[in-house]
């Protein structure tokens, strides 16, 4: 094992240069003025008492430069670590050792195979073609490097000292890697292998029964019944005979956390107390320290915007300016497909494509390991993309990846956020977004003029119905995407009758949308149904406070649907005392997964037993392979419509089970498990927050620097989508009007330094559902009692 993780004691304990040097006092750590080589004009950065920097620059170049410098000052290690991980370079920093349930070298190999660096390189090629946009990115880069070059080793962030390495030069490709890393998190989830195996295991009838494409009760982003105002592009039909792929023996690659998603909505002025729109957004991401977001304000003579940024990327990503507000949630369009390679022989250097023989383009990836060793891995690039799943045991089932994020983007993609930051109305907003490609998002919008809207925006493949849902035959180029959906045909909705727009990762449309786009991962839409229900019932004098309560609502509509059904069949005579205790909890329950709720735990356990009990055949067929499992809403529907369906029967028993039998059996099993835990660990151990176990870990998984066992409620199906490791990474509520009033909070702090007062000072407020009023300074009025320090930036 190379690269010892324990640093030398002398340098580390040195109060003049070791970790003590990172123990800051309660201040910004900035001097009152800075003379920096990259400035073209002067600028002023005002820090408030939450360490949010308010940047007042005279032009876009200086704004980018200062943003780069300031972000580096507070988040350098995070910027570097994220991009090292995206590039598959963790072994360089950590040596060869286990992390999570893999090793650093295997993780790095996986990142290279998925084509992360390849994608970033293509991105830079595309971005370079936009000279003005690229100049701004280079200026941001220059700002970061000015900061890095000013550091002596005693001033390095703590993690460099603990892990024994130094920061390296920042480059535009690192920003591209950051974008690709977000793309992998949000647009890197599909179930093609799992679906292929399920399709192979069941008859078509059973498959369609268990895994229908559309939930009849869904509440899509674009309301049901909305008419489409365009002529769809015609698609070539497939006339060839379909050959079955069979099953895929490969283990699907590790997927991003299932619970990454978000909520956003905007309420029209006709339904708010102020008469002006209110916009809300809470993105759900992995919760780490340092936090994924960095709050700031940026102003030039052209615009004045506030919001959150991603360290490593210029501009404000989610936020508002004096005219509009915007936010994002993830969409579920399938933009990642797998193709089975038809090799000519076992050397795997040539493959068949449309009866022609093509050669693979090998790319040798060099994985450096701390301590000197280098590991080489050859990745084969094909017509489709890199071959990710490769095995000598099953050479006929090797899979290549076709992913939208691999393609060279439109060069205007670089300017999307800059233009969003400057937008003043819906037209500006739509124009700014039209070149945005990946990860595709539901962009919510509200303006001072009174408009609300959602634009579903991304680069979407043109597919035949059913295409890409499963692994496809890679020997026919006909199976490729037939191009991309014209951007003007992307779904959008503006000022709908119901008085609000909303999205919570559900399907963008109802089945009437003329293009096929699902076939990625399912996304049970309990959150969106619940949010839309609550917004519809909220009346006509809606306030920000009510919307904050909705963001932090722990209610789960799936429980509201299932519990009455369960209770219908539960036999209540002959219950033990323990069972009666748990039943009473359910009977008293308000269907909210609050922190102290024991009923939530009971339902979770009961539902889990019920699910396993009903789907025993699926589990059996799916053992030892990557397999698709039905969604809870489907089970609920079957239960309501046909409780005697054969699905409830457990084939391994002689008895013919019905839903009633399974429900009772699973209740008893759940009570048994819970009672065992209660006896050995006490009643408090059954409280939902302890069962869920929410943590906010340090990015390098150093336990001492993280926060564990947060007392917070939530559920991935509740608006407050808090789970063990992921949750609302930013909560924002913006009231448009003559004076914008905005509120926000995130679980962390502005400083990435664990030794700072500002490392995790927001967590407690966020935990209890409180919001900070955001300080939106005017260019001509920069005074406020919350101002902590003003720093002037000069040439």
């Amino acid at each position, binding site marked *: 094992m190379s690269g010892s993780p324990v640093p030398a*004691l*002398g*340098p580390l*304990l*040195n*109060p*003049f*240069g*070791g*970790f*003590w*040097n*990172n*123990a*800051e*006092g309660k201040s910004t750590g900035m001097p009152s003025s800075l003379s920096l080589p990259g400035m073209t004009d002067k600028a002023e950065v005002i820090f408030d008492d939450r360490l949010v920097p308010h940047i007042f620059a005279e032009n876009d170049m200086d704004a980018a430069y200062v943003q780069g410098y300031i972000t580096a000052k507070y988040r350098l290690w995070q910027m570097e670590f994220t991009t090292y991980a995206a590039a598959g370079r963790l072994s360089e920093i950590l040596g060869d050792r286990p992390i999570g349930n893999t090793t650093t070298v295997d993780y790095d190999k996986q990142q290279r195979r998925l084509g992360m660096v390849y994608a970033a390189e293509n991105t830079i090629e595309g971005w370079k073609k936009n000279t003005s946009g690229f100049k701004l990115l280079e200026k941001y880069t220059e700002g970061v490097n000015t900061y890095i070059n000013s550091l*002596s*080793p*005693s001033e390095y962030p*703590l993690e460099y000292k*603990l892990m024994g390495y130094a920061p390296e030069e920042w480059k535009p490709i690192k920003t591209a890697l950051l974008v690709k890393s977000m793309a992998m998190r949000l647009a890197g989830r599909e179930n093609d292998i799992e679906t292929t195996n399920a399709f192979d295991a069941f008859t078509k009838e059973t498959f369609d029964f268990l895994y229908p494409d559309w939930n009849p009760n869904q509440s899509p982003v674009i309301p049901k019944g909305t008419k489409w105002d365009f002529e769809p592009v015609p698609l070539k039909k497939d006339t060839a005979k379909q050959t079955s792929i069979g099953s895929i023996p490969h283990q699907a690659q590790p997927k991003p956390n299932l619970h990454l998603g978000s909520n956003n909505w905007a309420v029209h002025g006709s339904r708010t107390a102020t008469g002006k729109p209110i916009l809300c957004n809470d993105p759900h991401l992995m919760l780490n320290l340092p936090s994924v977001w960095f709050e700031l304000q940026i102003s030039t003579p052209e615009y004045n915007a506030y919001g959150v940024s991603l360290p490593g990327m210029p501009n404000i990503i989610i936020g508002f300016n004096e005219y509009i507000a915007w936010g994002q949630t993830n969409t579920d369009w399938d933009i990642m497909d797998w193709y089975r390679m038809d090799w000519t022989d076992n050397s795997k250097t040539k493959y068949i494509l449309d009866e022609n023989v093509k050669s693979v383009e090998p790319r040798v990836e060099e994985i450096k390991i701390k301590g000197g060793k280098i590991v080489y891995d050859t990745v084969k690039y094909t017509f489709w993309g890199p071959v990710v799943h490769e095995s000598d045991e099953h050479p006929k089932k090797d899979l290549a990846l076709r992913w939208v994020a691999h393609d060279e983007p439109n060069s205007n993609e670089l300017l999307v956020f800059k233009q969003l930051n400057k937008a003043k109305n819906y037209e500006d907003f739509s124009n700014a977004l039209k070149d945005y490609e990946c990860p595709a998002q539901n962009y919510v919008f509200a303006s001072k003029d009174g408009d609300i809207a959602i634009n579903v925006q991304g680069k979407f493949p043109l597919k035949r119905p059913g295409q890409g849902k499963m692994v496809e035959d890679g020997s026919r180029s006909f199976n490729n995407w037939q191009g991309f959906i014209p951007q003007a045909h992307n779904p959008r909705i503006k000022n709908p009758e119901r008085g609000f727009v909303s999205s919570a990762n559900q399907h963008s449309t109802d089945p009437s949308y003329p293009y096929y786009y699902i076939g990625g991962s399912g996304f049970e839409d309990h959150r969106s149904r619940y949010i839309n229900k609550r917004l519809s019932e909220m009346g006509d004098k809606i306030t920000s406070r009510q919307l904050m309560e909705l963001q932090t609502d722990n209610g789960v509509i799936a429980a509201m649907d299932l519990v009455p059904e369960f209770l219908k069949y539960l036999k209540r005579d002959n219950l033990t005392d323990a069972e009666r205790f748990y039943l009473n909890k359910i009977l008293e329950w308000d269907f909210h997964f609050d922190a102290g709720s024991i009923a939530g735990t009971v339902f979770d356990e009961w539902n889990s037993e019920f699910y396993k009990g009903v789907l025993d055949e699926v589990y059996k067929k799916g053992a030892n392979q990557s397999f698709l499992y039905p969604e809870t809403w489907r089970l609920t529907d079957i239960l309501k419509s046909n409780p005697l369906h054969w699905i409830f029967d457990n084939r391994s028993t002689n008895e013919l089970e019905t839903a009633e039998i399974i429900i009772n059996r699973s209740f008893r099993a759940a009570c048994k498990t819970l009672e065992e835990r209660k006896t050995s660990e006490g009643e408090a151990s059954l409280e939902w927050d302890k069962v869920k176990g929410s943590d906010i870990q340090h990015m390098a998984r*150093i*336990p*001492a*620097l993280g926060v564990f066992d947060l007392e917070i409620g939530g559920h991935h199906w509740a608006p407050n989508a808090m789970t063990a490791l992921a949750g609302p990474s930013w909560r924002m509520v913006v009231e448009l009007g003559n004076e914008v009033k905005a509120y926000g909070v995130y679980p962390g702090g502005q400083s990435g330094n*664990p*030794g*700072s*007062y500002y*490392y995790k000072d927001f967590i407690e407020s966020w935990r209890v559902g409180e919001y900070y009023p955001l300080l939106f300074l005017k260019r001509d009025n920069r005074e406020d009692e919350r101002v902590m320090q003003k720093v002037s930036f000069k040439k």
Partner: protein
Amino acid sequence: MNIAKQTLAIFILSFFLQYLFSYWWLLPLVAFLVGAGLHLRTFNSFFSGFLGGFLLWGLYSLFIDWNNSSILSSQIAELFGVSSGFILILITALLAGLVSGLCALTGTFGRSVITPPPPKRIKRYSYKR
């Protein structure tokens, strides 16, 4: 007196140099040079070397910790597996003291190679006549 002189010399010189240049090895270097320069006897040299380092790193880290409300030391203590930030301050001070003391001792021993070793202090007995 000599002990106080050496302690102070190490403390002040190291503080000055480390404040400007940070390097941890400046402390042992200064201790070695001062130890050689003042050429104290074995125990006194070690002890004052120890005290100089102990006080310098101990007091400075104490000051930093106070200014920081122990935010960082409590986390690093957990990282090291010790019970509190204060223990960490103690460890810092002890490490510095040990290294400094040993280097001062090395310095005075080294000096003894080129200069006669310092004499023991003559005890003056009062004669009773």
